[in-house]
């Protein structure tokens, strides 16, 4: 309700129409006073208006429209993508895994091209010579586009994470089933085994003939058990692989964050390195200067000593000469 009141208010404070009305009054006033007719000038300016649009903003807008297309594409297929096949849903809108992988790949290629386009724009902008304000403006525009791209990438990675998680959950659920099935099988084996002696006894004569060609019931049982064990092992391996895949996706996300931070720190470390190099230079120079000073000091002292000794010798000499 407050927003409605606020929009009422902003509409009432809109004096654009008032402005247009005053434009008309000024026009009529000018015409009445016989000032220069602007209509001829309008055409000339109209031609000027159709000047070449700034290539930078045109290309920036292209990149944005591409990213928007990607976003729509992802959102469109999101429902089907994420719906990782609950048994209940109809098979009509089901996506196969290959289709999902295809979507993943396409999305990644697209995102990479968009990121490249942004990088290209940035390097070109660095080469062009324009005023400082335009430079700032362009840098800010590119930042905005990057943030937008990052938002869309987040959509994609969320989608993917949800998909992987659902698959893992499904596998976990279905892992219970083989156990149950094997459980059932064992039970049914038990039943079969109980049935078997009955049928065996019936078909004893008949089976005895076949005992050399076919495997004996114990061997059948053993092979069946081994079968089940192998199936169980494979399932658990598959399970673990899926889990690892999920974890790897998470780790890659973390890796992204870390690499971002490390890159940020890189510039700072460079600065510090430069400062340290400068500081060592200064310290070296300082050491040199101190050495010079010490030498000068020492030299100075020698000269003073020499002078004093010479003076005293000359005094002695004069004294002896006089005397």
């Amino acid at each position: 309700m407050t927003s409605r009141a606020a929009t009422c208010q902003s509409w009432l404070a809109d004096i654009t129409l008032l402005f247009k009305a005053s434009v008309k009054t000024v026009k009529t006033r000018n015409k009445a006073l016989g000032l220069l007719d602007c209509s001829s000038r309008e055409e000339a300016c109209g031609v000027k208006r159709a000047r070449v649009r700034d290539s930078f903003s045109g290309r920036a807008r292209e990149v944005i429209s591409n990213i928007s297309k990607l976003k729509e594409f992802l959102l469109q297929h999101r429902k089907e993508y994420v719906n990782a096949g609950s048994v209940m849903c109809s098979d009509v809108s089901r996506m196969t895994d290959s289709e999902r992988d295809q979507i993943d790949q396409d999305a990644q290629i697209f995102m990479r091209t968009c990121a490249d386009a942004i990088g290209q724009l940035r390097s070109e902008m660095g080469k062009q010579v324009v005023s400082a304000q335009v430079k700032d403006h362009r840098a800010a525009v590119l930042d905005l586009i990057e943030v937008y791209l990052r938002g869309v990438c987040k959509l994609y990675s969320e989608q993917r994470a949800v998909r992987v998680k659902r698959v893992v959950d499904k596998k976990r659920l279905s892992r219970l089933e083989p156990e149950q099935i094997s459980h059932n099988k064992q039970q049914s084996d038990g039943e079969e085994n109980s049935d078997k002696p009955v049928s065996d006894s019936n078909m004893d004569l008949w089976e005895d003939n076949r005992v050399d060609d076919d495997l004996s019931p114990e061997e059948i049982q053993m092979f069946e058990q081994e079968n089940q064990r192998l199936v169980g092992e494979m399932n658990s391996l598959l399970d673990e692989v899926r889990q690892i895949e999920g974890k790897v996706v998470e780790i890659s996300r973390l890796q992204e964050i870390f690499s971002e931070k490390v890159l940020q720190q890189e510039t700072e470390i460079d600065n510090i390195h430069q400062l340290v190099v400068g500081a060592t230079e200064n310290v070296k120079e300082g050491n040199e200067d101190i050495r010079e000073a010490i030498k000068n000091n020492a030299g100075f002292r020698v000269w003073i000593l020499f002078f004093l000794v010479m003076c005293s010798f000359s005094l002695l000499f004069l004294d002896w000469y006089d005397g």
Partner: protein
Amino acid sequence: MAASVREKQTAALKRMLNFNAPPLKNTTAEPVWKVLIYDRFGQDIISPLLSVKELRDIGITLHLLLHSDRDPIPDVPAIYFVMPTEENIDRICQDLRNQLYESYYLNFISAISRSKLEDIASAALAANAVNLVTKVFDQYLNFITLEDDMFILCNQNKEHISYHAINKPDIMDTDMDGIMDTIVDSLFCFFVTLGAVPIIRCPRGNAAEMVAVKLDKKLRENLRDARNSLFTGDTVGTGQFSFQRPLFVLADRNLDLATPLHHTWTYQALIHDVLDFHLNRVSVEESQGSEASPAGARPKKKNKKSYDLTAADKFWQKHKGSPFPEVAEAVQEELDTYRAQEDEVKRLKSIMGLEGEDDGAISMLSDNTAKLTSAVSSLPELLEKKRLIDLHTNVATAVLDHIKSRKLDVYFEYEEKLMSKSTLDKSLLDIISDPDAGTAEDKMRLFLIYYITSQQPPSEADLEQYKKALVDAGCDLSPLNYIKQWKAFTKMAATPANYGSSGVKPMGLFSRVMNTGSQFVMEGVKNLVLKQHNLPVTRILDNLMEIKSNPETDDYRYFDPKMLRGSESSIPRSKNPFQEAIVFVVGGGNYIEYQNLVDYTKARQGKRVLYGCSELFNAAQFMKQLSQLGQK
């Protein structure tokens, strides 16, 4: 009104920056870039509400001053947010002629007159840019909101409407009219943004009454003009239970001159008093260290750092009204919690180090990735928290230095006693002649408060003694002349002295012992506990809101812009107590009154009080104005 004034103004600004369309809630919408151009008024309005990062998020790539050199940036819409003055209009016309931007969205802070609109129209015609001027709006945002419930009128030309300007003896009628118009314009914008038509009460016979009359007239005109009224649709649509209209109390600074001079003890008011603080930005001088500089070294440079105290800073919001010792303890607590969290994150690092050797445990890995993710996501929060703790530590240390050097706690205690008429344990002369308690300004403040709150003026001999002591301490005596005049003029001699019952209890040895453990060693600074007391402004508000009968407020005038006939009677129509009130002090206000009102509101459930003033000054600035007045 469920949304506070600050939220409303922020929402209005964001709408304006979104080309005057309501902003979408879609988080990943396509970025649209624009350039924001403001003048100094616009800058003051925007800077407490939106940070540069928020502007970037909205899509503003550049924000520039109107009167700076601006280069043409093609293909970009430009949003202007300026006052409709002559120079601004000229500059806009110049921009149109130079074709700096692709399209122009002009937003005027207060209403623009028809003639100026025609000036822009003719410039646009001459430059053939009429269809480039896409929208023109009157934003009615000519006030600055500092807190959720506090606003001031303007920061740029505040000498124009300062206490000095209103009260100087040689003021001309035209000047006074100009000042009143400015104030009424801003108040009108404030009520338009708030979306409510108030009931106005004001005392008789001073500047506040003139403001009330003019404001009433303006609101009435606007409501009559049904076509263009700015208040339609909101009697229904402003919040849940706003059947009642708010109460608007106009007070004049002359009612209470002691409060702006008072030394204070709460965090926000202290920062305003002692450091350089305006528009929610505080500048602190940082000294490089406390070691003695070796002989021959260059003198240490103090660099000034400025911090923004914003609404997002939870510690600030919680503690800005707390007494200073509480703040010190709270900072210590925050620091401890932060260190604990930091240690946890570090522990995680060591766990990860161990896990690197044992690579067969997938299950443990899953736990750790989850922990790592949570740690990484909480890292920005931790860093932000650290920054805030550092900020508050620096600010609080600076304040504490001032307190210790000027012995502000002594002053505070003494003044509280003066204002509440309790017995004084030290004579005034002792404090004034004490050479290391406070600056000359502090002593002057103390003396003025004593003079204002004493029932009878002190005898001539005493006065001479005090004056001599003050001059010895280096004070300037001109404010005293003005206060003498003021006291002579004001007929309400009894009421200013009544500052309510208050008491100041210095907490004893026990608390001092507790405090020595904390980082802020407050030895010698008494831990004073504030008891609840009401300043005159709060008392007046209480009487008017609760419709109590009191000789002070009974002859206040009553204005209701919605009534068909403006009546001169001062009999209020409704007998119900008001739920919302807006207090506005003409001539200047400060954080002490604001804090007092906030405390009053907290004690009563369901009431909302907004505080506004024509300008915000601290005691030093007020003293300067008083001395200017006293010299005339």
